[in-house]
């Protein structure tokens, strides 16, 4: 099953950052697979390694200070680790595209939107300027902005937050990438816009049969959009499952605790079940299972042995000593 079918196949990827005060172990052997036309959500809190994962796929991790200890990152069967910069530049934007959290930060404020979109069409697809403008208009239409020359002739500050995020998405998909990485694409947006952007990403996935890596810390949003979900904690995937079975048949105590700690109207009058303690630093990860100091089920063995990831059928896997 794990053959060439997968668009992206991350195996046992292990990355640390070397600093003067010691190494920060950002990723501790993660496994992820994404097939074409599938949305995989990577859920975790800040500092859990979500962004390092996406940056390493894009080949944007600076080496040094980063060091790839082991593992492979297969994209369409080719290992991206150790690829020369020139090769990665050809892939980035064309085959693998990315949508960032804050559109305002990632658009060049001194260039018109049109120039920013056509730049990559000219570069990657060898289009003439005129063709590129036509193509750009087409993709603005796809993301719901209409074939608007006004948008093309605007500077980023003239657009609203939601429009900027749509432009970012148009830029990401205009070269028809096979993999789209969306790093918290809705966090900076208002709630009424969130759902529109989620619907857009879901439609685009269908339309272009892209694989999507959707990174978020919000389980509510992930539930709306993902086909499969992986939960990451302190640089390790603790649970992976299909959307339905993660929410209905939660295995790992961390996932369960996260779900229980989300407030809603039904929990009114009851205390929230908070997770004690805080997320560990990448420099100072607890021994054994990294969640054991905060885990309600922790036993002696949890602080000594790192739990292996076990398969519980239907593609549902978890790494916990206490799950049987």
């Amino acid at each position, binding site marked *: 099953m794990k053959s060439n079918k997968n668009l992206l196949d991350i195996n046992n990827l292990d990355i640390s950052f070397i600093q003067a005060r010691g190494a920060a172990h950002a990723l501790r052997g993660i496994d992820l697979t994404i097939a074409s036309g599938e949305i995989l959500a990577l859920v975790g809190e800040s500092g859990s390694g979500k962004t390092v994962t996406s940056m390493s796929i894009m080949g944007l991790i600076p080496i040094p200070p980063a060091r790839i200890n082991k593992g492979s990152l297969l994209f369409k069967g080719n290992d991206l680790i150790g690829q020369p910069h020139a090769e990665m530049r050809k892939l980035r934007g064309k085959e693998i595209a990315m949508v960032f959290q804050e559109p305002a930060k990632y658009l060049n404020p001194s260039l018109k939107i049109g120039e920013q979109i056509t730049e990559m069409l000219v570069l990657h697809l060898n289009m003439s300027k005129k063709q590129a403008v036509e193509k750009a208009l087409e993709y603005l239409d796809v993301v*719901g902005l209409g074939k608007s020359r006004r948008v093309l002739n605007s500077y980023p500050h003239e657009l609203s937050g939601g429009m900027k995020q749509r432009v970012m998405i148009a830029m990401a998909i205009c070269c028809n990438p096979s993999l789209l990485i969306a790093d918290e694409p809705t966090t900076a947006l208002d709630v*009424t816009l969130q759902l529109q952007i*989620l619907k857009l990403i879901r439609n685009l996935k269908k339309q272009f049969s892209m694989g999507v890596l959707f990174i978020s810390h919000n389980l509510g949003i992930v539930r709306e959009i993902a086909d499969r979900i992986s939960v990451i904690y302190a640089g390790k995937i603790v649970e992976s499952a299909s959307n339905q079975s993660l929410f209905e048949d939660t295995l790992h105590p961390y996932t369960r605790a996260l779900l229980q*700690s989300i*407030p809603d*109207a039904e929990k009114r009058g009851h205390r*929230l079940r908070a997770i004690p303690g805080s997320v560990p630093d990448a420099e100072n990860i607890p021994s054994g299972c990294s969640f054991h100091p905060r885990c309600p089920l922790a036993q002696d063995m949890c602080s000594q042995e790192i739990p292996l990831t076990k398969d519980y059928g239907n593609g549902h896997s978890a790494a916990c000593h206490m799950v049987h």
Partner: protein
Amino acid sequence: MHRFVEIKNLEKTYYGHGIFKSLKNAVKAVDRVSLGIEKKSIFGLVGESGCGKTSLVRSVLYLDPPTAGEVWVDNTLLGDLPASGLRSFRQRMQIVFQDPNSALNPKMNIQNSLEEGLVNRGFDAPRRKKQVSRVLDLVGISPSHSTRYPHEFSGGQKQRIVIARAICMEPDFLVLDEPVSNLDVSIQAQIVNLLQDLKEDLGLTYLFISHDLNLVAYLSDRIAVMYRGRLVESGSTDEIMNRPLHPYTLKLFSSIPGMEITAMTADAGNMPEFSSDGVKPVTVDTRGCHYIDLCPLRGRECAAREPQIETVHGSHKVACFKINKCM
């Protein structure tokens, strides 16, 4: 006799620069907002960014005095107080900001940050130290850490310290401006529980501001929904959650992932969507309903007149001409 906090027809207009341009560029950030908060209750204020929540809060606390309207706290009219009286009254009203990283002075240790207000209250050093230890203990930070600096704490701990600083002055009214939205999911619940405990133990009254409807619904006794400077709907949490009426509230509710959608809001989800791109900014001479550009129910009267916020049932108030169609 007023309720503990009573806000009447509060208005805040920001004027543009220059002598002649000033009126033309004026922005009405808060437009005749009235609301009342009972003692020891939690009032939730919901709205998107830019709707005037923060302007409202700043006006209520007289950090930025309102252009018009009255604010009563515990039967005191804040506008009538002289500057010195306002300063001493303000110890009863404290605020917790969204981002704990920018709310604490990085060059002051925790002890100094917390006791600044107490110095003004004329506490001597031993009493200050005692009070700081007491509040740090209340929020779950070891008092022995009081000589540390903000960078030595995690985000959740920093927010606890900001809360400690607010309750250090022994206020009875606390404004919480998105207190958990910058925190990790697993930390949010800790802070929310802490806020609930403090309210019970110290008998506090909260004005809780958030864009997270799930959280507001969980925490508040009453909810008000704000849109472009105006309150469009207010009522008890049950009234709002079980029977949201204003088209904007429906839109807000149907956009929340994981929110239980009632039969009526499901209709709202199917209502035609208007793009938010053509929305004109609100100026002093904007007439009619502010939601008109996006509203699926809009009619002729919506452009001509401004809907007033009126009682529908019990304490449930809505500002919309078209709500009969929703019911």
